[in-house]
């Protein structure tokens, strides 16, 4: 609302993105590019309505998320999260990827769309969610956070099931190429950061 996102970069759609269709959030909102290496975030000042009485200076973010290999599909075992760091190795970059036993999930990749990845940091007060992954029937959650009991739904983009988080649990966007699973972006702001790409 208060930020203008520069849509100069074309968005590529790969097979997995198209296959998700309408259960995915609109990826055009995130700028991603395939191949290439990490690009630093930069902000650009733009003046809107320049020269008029309504002139305002706004900041525009030109974001570039790195593309990082985080797992091999064939090595993922059901209900066994694998840890990785993203988008860098700095503070609050702890994340996990998990195969969730053949139940489809929003943003899921793999043949059953059941492979998802999320930040480990609770978006309430930064509590650690490591070891809180659970599967109950068809439900897949992380939580209760040891600090204040927040629980997140891993099939529904990390939406809060019950709890105090100020934001859904940041979901790491994944793309698959053969057996390789890449992290390519994040939906939401990681706890403790003011910008995902600044550490």
């Amino acid at each position, binding site marked *: *609302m*208060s*930020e203008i996102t520069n849509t100069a970069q074309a968005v590529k759609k790969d097979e997995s993105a198209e296959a998700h269709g309408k*259960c995915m*959030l*609109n990826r055009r*909102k*995130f700028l991603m590019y395939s191949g290439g290496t990490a690009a630093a975030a930069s902000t650009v000042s733009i003046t809107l309505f320049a020269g008029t009485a309504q002139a*305002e*200076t706004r900041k525009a973010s030109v*974001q570039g998320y790195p593309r990082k290999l985080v797992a091999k599909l064939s090595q993922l075992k059901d209900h066994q999260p694998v840890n990785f760091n993203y988008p860098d190795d*700095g*503070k*609050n970059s702890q994340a996990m990827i998990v195969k969730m036993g053949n139940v489809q*999930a*929003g*943003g899921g990749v793999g043949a059953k769309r059941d492979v998802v990845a999320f930040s480990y*940091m609770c*978006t*309430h*007060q*930064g*509590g*650690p969610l490591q070891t809180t992954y*659970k599967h*109950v029937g068809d*439900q*897949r*959650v992380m*939580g*209760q956070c040891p*600090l204040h*009991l927040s*629980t997140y*739904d891993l*099939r*529904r*983009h990390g*939406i*809060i*099931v*019950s*709890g*105090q988080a*100020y*934001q*859904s649990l*940041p979901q790491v966007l994944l793309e698959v190429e053969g057996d390789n699973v890449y992290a390519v972006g994040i*939906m*939401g*702001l*990681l*706890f*403790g*950061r*003011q*910008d*995902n790409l*600044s*550490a």
Partner: protein
Amino acid sequence: MTIDYYQAKDHAPIPPKNADVLTTACDYCIVACGYKIYRWPVGAKDGGMKASENAFGVDFPSNMLQEWVAPTQHNICTHKGKKHNVVIIPDKDTNFVNTNGDSSIRGGLLAQKCYNKDTKTKDRLKTPLVRVNGVLTPMSWNDAIDIAAEVGSHVLKKHGEAAYGIKTYSYQYIENTYAITKYALRHVNTPNFTFHDTPADVTSTPGFRDAGFDNFGPSYDDWGSAETLMICGTDPYETKTVLFTQHIMPGIANGMKVIALNPRETAGIAYIKKMGGLHLDIYPGSDNLVLGAIARVVMQNGWEDSDWIKHWVNNKWESNSGFGQGTRNTPWQWRTTWGKFQTKGYEDYKKWNLKQAEYDPEAAAKKAGIDVKKIYQAAEWLAKPVNGKRPKTSIGIEKGFYWSNNTGNTNAISSLATICGAGGRPGQVVGRFGGHQRGGQKGGGYPRNKSAQKVPGRRRQALDTDRWMYSGHTRFAHVIGTTWIQSMTGSQGLAAKFEELVVKNPNQVKSNNKAEIIATLKKRADSGGMVVINQDIYLRDPIGAKFADVVFPAATWGEVDFMRANGERRLRLYQAFNDAPGEAKPDWEIISLLARKMGFDGFDWKSSNEVAEEASRFSRKGRKAFHMVKVAAHIEGKTLHQKMREFGTDGIQGPTMYNYKTGMLHGTKRLHDTTVGEKQFTAMGLENGPVKENRYGKKMTHFNSQTGKINLQKHPWSLFGDLWEWLSPKKDELWMSNGRVNEVWQSGFDDVERRDYISQRWPGNWVEIHPDDAKKRGIESGDMVMMYSERVPVFKDTILGVHGKDFQFSELMKNGHIKLDKASITAVAIVTPITKPGAMYGNFLDMKQPTNSLTIRVPDNISGNYNYKMGVGKVKKIGESEFKKDFRGMSFAPRNIT
């Protein structure tokens, strides 16, 4: 249901070092966590990641529990006409309440409340509106006030005060409630007056009142320092989150045993169970039976706190006493006649309890649907001495409990608490946990003698304004900050009545001419119809959108300086930091314009501080007494609000005392504190008695009865049992109870519809059904279902009670005062084991599909309150919702996974 999907941002600005910093407290739940507002102009540089570059003094990325700004905690608002960034996060420096800078999801998103015309708050009311040809049309303040005042005065003169009804919030800041009640009770002086959560202006917890317990005596510390804590009718994690996370959870970690008396299990109760606590998962409305049985087990084992009882329980003569309290219709009258409630003391209570067949533990457990072992376990934890020492027991209640059997349950818990020695010592307290914050200050007395309602043997009872309106006696309805209709039971019937009296009346405004508008509205009132005026921040449907003839735009939290207290009587100043939209004014100012136009004196305030200063002396008898803060302020050459500002988020707990020698203000940690001694009095300068304007009332160290001791009361099941049996699910019916949910504040006040993050989680009406019940009906999570009933009982007439049983439900049925309504609502089904088999749990107040349409409109026959939690209905699948297979919104994961 269409919702806008929440787009998670991946950045948020941090406030710069020179940002304005203002303190405030949350506008939502009772806990009232302290917050800091950081404000800096749009266009100015944001804060940087280094500690020296931002207002927090923290290096980013920050650590667990440190300051962090989620994108939802930032907004753009207007301050002095210019755009400013605001970041609102819990105060990490506060010393009380939300220690460690904790907050709930509700308060955490306070920034989203601010008026910002580029967001969903853009439909804030900005100008007065008058309905012309069915359309709400902007009008000047002058004209709109003229219309309301002229028509209101006409109704008062021609139809009497009782025809002028006022329905208002009870909590939205002391300045507003003082002005509103001064107008309604002192000047208009109408008995047709009540608050948002009850049809009649009566106490919500009659049992507490009659026993002598204040609702908010405990300090938050007490809830964590008991050895056994019993929680009735709520999961505090859900609706008083930080009270649970910062006060109860640490207690549990220290070994506090917790008993939860509640049909359903959410995250807090699940945690309690995981840590070894006890869940009494009863059927709705059966609490009295279980409590009576627990009390019996305690007494039969001789585990009662006999020392405490000996010193603090009234005998018959003592509970009879009360000359000067007034005759007939006072609480002690209720106690002392009929033989229904009063006891001669402990032995008499014990004898009575042992005689009641329903309090046999096996019988009680069976009716309540729980394992009888739990009754014995609870009794042990509450009262059995361990190594010769009695456990320190505290008991807290909330709406699930006292809106189920209002009188019976609150009587029973007061007696159980007293037997276990709870109520008057640190860690051994009794009280409500709270719902709304405590922002009520009465500016006048309720004219009960003008009420048309009477119960047998009494003078007058506070008027049931729903029934009064329903029977056609209200000609002018003045509705302030409440939806009225959906908040009351049998809502579909109430809405139909509004439609009939307001919209279908032939006298409708068809002209923009002020005189003609006034003439038409007068004719409507005279012809037996009803005129509606409405003050609010948003246009509510239907009270504002469909029915109001005049709408006034109100200013709210953050737009005006206001005072209020939380559940441990902690008073704070809620500071203004952004401009109210358009021409919106605070409610006290709207009232003052109207009152002056109607010729009432004493409404010439120029600022909210002036209102607060006038109100202070009326606060002196109450638990929020803040008069001494004003005294201190004036001695120091400050205003009341200026002095309150100095307290920041720490605030000061009422009642307040002032030591004239040291110049120090003192707050009160807890009420009914029988352990207060010499040291505390000396610190306050009161060691020789009251000094100047200090008032140290009885409830500080004793209880609210004539003698200052506790009344031990009976709680006969028979007063409610006939209704409960009649209501109990038959054939394929299920209990249809309702309540709140953690992520939404109350009824979705101003959050759920306007925060994509929240509306995505809770996009519409929902109902929880146990898997056993769902399976039988072919219902799965995500299905659209209809809950319906052909037997919603409605007490339809205003009657004078003559004989003792006249208000008993079975008598009302027999005498034709109960009509059975049909009602139905739709919702998305959540199939979950957290609710009890045989019982559904729905959203208590979805605006479009209120569960209140299925709840009984039969007020408690003693207290006059609705038992909102009582309802039954059938449920069937009518289709599938979009959320069944779509992953973007809602969640059907159980809320009790630990």
